[in-house]
């Protein structure tokens, strides 16, 4: 049996991912999470002295907190199976990745387990976020110094 023709058979028989349905679910889930984030930021603006801009930081932290509660009680993975990227792309998904790894590796202790493995899944986001930010900022700074663009 050659691999190529077998892959064709697999493609024919294997159930297709319901892309459209998944996208609708992702839209709904992600939309709700962002709408909640917006409401949370209004709360920070209304009751505390945060402006539209500065409210985003405590809102993000609050969303991560909510993510911790949902992850801890085993609810976030159900949301994840339903929402797909809708629950992975918002910062709550980042929180879920960190927190689930932390809970999972508790059994190996707090240093070698939780500490070492916490960013097992979310690490690349930070690594490539920082690296791309560095590259982008460097290029822009060079262009500004050369006088091609301004800040």
């Amino acid at each position, binding site marked *: 049996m050659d691999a190529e023709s077998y892959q064709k058979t697999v493609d024919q028989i294997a159930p297709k991912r319901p892309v459209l349905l998944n996208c609708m679910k992702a839209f709904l889930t992600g939309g709700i999470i962002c709408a909640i984030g917006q409401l949370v930021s209004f709360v920070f*603006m*209304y009751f505390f*002295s945060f*402006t*539209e*801009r*500065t*409210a*985003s930081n405590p809102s993000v932290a609050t969303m991560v907190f909510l993510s911790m509660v949902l992850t801890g009680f085993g609810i976030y993975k159900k949301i994840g199976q339903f929402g797909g990227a809708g629950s992975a792309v918002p910062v709550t998904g980042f929180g879920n990745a960190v927190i689930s790894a932390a809970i999972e590796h508790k059994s190996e202790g707090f240093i070698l387990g939780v500490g070492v493995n916490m960013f097992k899944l979310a690490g690349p986001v930070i690594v490539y976020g920082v690296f791309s930010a560095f590259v982008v900022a460097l290029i822009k700074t060079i262009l500004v110094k050369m006088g091609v663009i301004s800040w």
Partner: protein
Amino acid sequence: MMKKLWIISLILLGVAGCSEEFKVSTYHVDDDQQEIETLTKVFKDNQNLSEAAAVFFDHQLVVSVQVQQMSKFKKEKIRKSIEKKVKSAFPDHDVYVSSDLKITWELKKIIDEQPTTDELKKDLKKVKALAKEET
């Protein structure tokens, strides 16, 4: 509430571009109507605003504008152009223009309460400090 819902539905239909009701609220300690009118004209000249609030106090002018949803991409540009216009209209005032919702809320609170001079001084200081904070 109903009016808000009505406005929203209009926006969602995409026809709300210019028909949105434009509200200006002001508080002038010395109640100088002419100054208020000059300022209101600056706001009315800009088609992108949905709400504006301003407080005059002792040659200070703190302004906040709310930009219509569809113009929010250009929010910073709009704020800057308003700032420029207000500054040229009130050259003898210390002008501060913000486009932040929180500042609008705070200014409206001041306008509603019409506080005494001392309190107003404190309030405005607080508002300005808030607005200066960056992300």
